[in-house]
């Protein structure tokens, strides 16, 4: 006889303003099981998490704990049942110490009126031990790296006698190495009998750690089963509802392609040193490295955002002095930043304005007046060409999904007719379907003769787009490999 599952979701439905966010979704999580909830943005994952956490009531369906259907389901009930959610923002107190962040919960539920710092530290130490990490107890949470914040949040959850930990996109902001560490911790928790509901759209992680996979699409459960029953292409198909072309998007330079960019001896003290490479027309070049390897600094330097201390850059065979983004743009270099939300887009401004903001000069007529019709037509052209999904170009960019926002950024740079485009982590935080499309766009751009540099630490992203890959470690280029290399091999070269 098998014991009832820890958590059983039965026929959950939820609508917002007449739109079905969840439609008859059900699955179970057993003790010590790692279940992955996969789905693209807008598939209903967040709604489901909120319902399980007690933050929102379901319109229909029920939740059973240990086989008992629950009548009341408030956040407090969820906590009492041993369900802890680690939200994307971790819900930490940025101003408090690690110790307090972990232990405050305990002190509060114990009903203490006064605070005993010795006890707080002891509790915190116990929590960190259970996670198996060592983080200075007195450090302010605000100053911790993202990965450590997450570990603090996990330690806190464990101390509340968590039987099920729900992690919402836990790996988005982590580096490859940190992700591996997190997955190790999840395995440890599983061995301790703690269940984990893991929400992600990074497919390799899903296969790496999960026992069971549940796929949501448009609010419906479209597939569920053990991890062994899925492979990358079937999972992708379930998530997107279509076959993502398995064709390679890598673009190598033609034999007679002209050299667009040559970098020699480029040095910035404390960031990178003696960087040399070349880029040909129509080529997609990858530059990868772990956090702190200098890849982001290099990308910024190439676009004139950070001044360099030495070395030279030549564009089209002629030396180019690039001291500012204006210089870079004048030489036909475009840059799409990593955090597209904060660095690249004016979120509250219309889509059209965001696309044409770089080309205003070209549409300025006599007397400095703007040619509004020209601008509008240009914006429309790019929206069509890049398939930005929007009812109107006049809507603000923040109304778009992540993938579509990324396309707007691309459109902005293409509108400036660049010769060279630097993409920093182009598919960070983008779902699988959009990811493949962005890779296809990148390939399309390369086919149009633009030289492209993709900078990222996301190995599948690099391998999906680049024919040639430079590996950076400690500020230097230590390796050059072809895009045919295996993911494991590349990961090894990054870290060793």
């Amino acid at each position: 006889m098998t014991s009832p599952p820890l958590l059983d979701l039965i026929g959950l439905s939820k609508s917002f303003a007449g739109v079905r966010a969840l439609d008859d979704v059900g699955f179970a999580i057993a003790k010590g099981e790692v279940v992955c909830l996969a789905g693209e943005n807008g598939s209903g994952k967040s709604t489901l998490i909120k319902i399980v956490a007690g933050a929102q009531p379901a319109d229909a369906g029920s939740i059973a704990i240990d086989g008992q259907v629950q009548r009341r389901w408030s956040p407090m009930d969820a906590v009492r049942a041993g369900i802890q959610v680690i939200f994307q923002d971790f819900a930490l107190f940025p101003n408090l110490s690690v110790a307090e962040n972990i232990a405050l919960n305990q002190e509060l539920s114990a009903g203490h009126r006064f605070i005993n710092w010795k006890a707080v530290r002891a509790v915190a130490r116990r929590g960190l031990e259970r996670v198996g990490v060592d983080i200075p107890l007195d450090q302010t949470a605000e100053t911790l790296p993202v990965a450590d914040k997450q570990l603090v949040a996990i330690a806190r959850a464990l101390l509340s006698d968590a039987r099920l930990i729900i992690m919402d996109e836990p790996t988005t902001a982590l580096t490859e190495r940190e992700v591996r560490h997190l997955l190790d911790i999840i395995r440890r928790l599983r061995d301790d009998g703690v269940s984990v509901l893991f929400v992600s759209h990074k497919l390799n992680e899903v296969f790496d750690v999960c026992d069971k996979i549940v796929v949501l699409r448009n609010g419906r459960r479209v597939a569920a089963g053990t991890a062994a029953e899925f492979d990358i292409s079937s999972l992708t198909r379930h998530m997107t509802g279509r076959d993502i072309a398995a064709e390679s998007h890598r673009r190598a330079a033609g034999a007679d392609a002209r050299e667009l960019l040559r970098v020699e001896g480029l040095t910035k003290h404390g960031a990178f040193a003696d960087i040399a490479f070349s880029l040909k027309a129509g080529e997609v070049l990858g530059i990868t490295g772990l956090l702190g390897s200098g890849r982001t600094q290099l990308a910024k330097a190439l676009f004139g955002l950070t001044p360099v201390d030495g070395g030279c850059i030549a564009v089209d065979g002629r030396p180019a002095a690039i001291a500012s983004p204006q210089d870079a743009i004048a030489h036909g270099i475009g840059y799409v930043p990593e955090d597209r939300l904060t660095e690249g887009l004016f979120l509250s401004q219309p889509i059209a304005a965001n696309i044409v903001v770089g080309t205003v000069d070209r549409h300025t007529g006599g007397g400095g007046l703007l040619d509004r019709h020209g601008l509008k037509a240009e914006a429309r052209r790019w929206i069509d060409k890049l398939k930005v999904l929007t009812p109107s170009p006049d809507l603000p960019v923040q109304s778009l999904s992540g993938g579509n926002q990324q396309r707007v950024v691309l459109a902005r740079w293409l509108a400036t007719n660049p010769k060279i485009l630097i993409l920093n982590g182009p598919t960070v935080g983008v779902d699988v379907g959009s990811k493949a499309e962005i890779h296809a766009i990148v390939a399309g751009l390369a086919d149009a003769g633009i030289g492209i540099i993709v900078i990222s630490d996301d190995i599948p992203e690099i391998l999906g787009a680049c024919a040639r890959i430079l590996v950076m470690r400690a500020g230097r280029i230590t390796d050059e490999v072809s895009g045919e290399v295996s993911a494991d091999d590349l990961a090894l070269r990054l870290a060793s």
Partner: protein
Amino acid sequence: MPSWATRNEVIVALVIVALCVVTALINPSFLSLATLFDMLRNGILIGLLAIGVMLVLISGGIDVSFTAIAAFSMYAATMLLVDLGIGDSLLLAFLISAGIGLSLGMINALFIAGFGLPTLIVTLGTLSAFRGFLLAFVGSDLISNVPPAMRDFSRSMLVRGTDAAGYFYSLPTAVLFLIAAVVITWFILYRTMLGRSIFAVGGSREAAARIGFNVRATQVFVYGYVGVLAGTAGLIHASLARVANPSDIVGLELEVIAAVVLGGARLTGGYGTITGTLLGVTLIVLVNNTLVTLGIPTTWQKVMIGFLILLGTGLPAFQARLRANRMG
């Protein structure tokens, strides 16, 4: 640069030392017990108010109405004591003034914790409302025959000395209230869950609510506490000045908030220390009381305080940018 060197407390302390050195070089008699006592006495009002403001800033809010609360409590309490002929008990005087302060603080709390309105808007409104009500309905004449208890209190000195010329210098007993407020506030902030809840709410309101802190209760406490401190500070002010002037105190908001921000409390909430706040108060009091010696015209006083505020608020932002650059 080690991290402690860029902390607000250290920088403010260094500025204080520098200012003292310069003033002492110009006028060697600056370094005297008389000066110290004068500064302490002049720091009581600002100090008490600043402790309250610090608590509000830590909790993630801002209060600009505390001066109006202090003026209202002080004046209404004095008037009650005089009219009812009960001006012989100092304890009663303080209870009435602090009680009025508490009630006015509760009005703030009602709007902020009860209706969830933004703290700046609410307290800007109550600043004006409390002050208007005081002048229009309570009274606008100053009361210079303050009750005997207050008059005696103003003459009550903790320490009294005589200088070379035979004149007195003295430290009023009222300074004990500042010391008590510091000790009590320290205990609340660092030894009670209530205190930690103030930090937690200021650090992340949502996270605080999520782990079960009663955010509203915390806010009610904070604004009530500010009211009590303001009422107490107001009565001390009126006693020491031996006059209850309804147009006193209001107008000090900027200086007090400046002192607290200089001491490292952040307008975005979650951060603030008592040491820092006291250092900030010291600096503001020092600036206000060394201009004649330094030969700086009084109009420059405001320029200097403005500059200090920019320094105090700009520094943490600048440090945050430095940190971000290092991590990138």
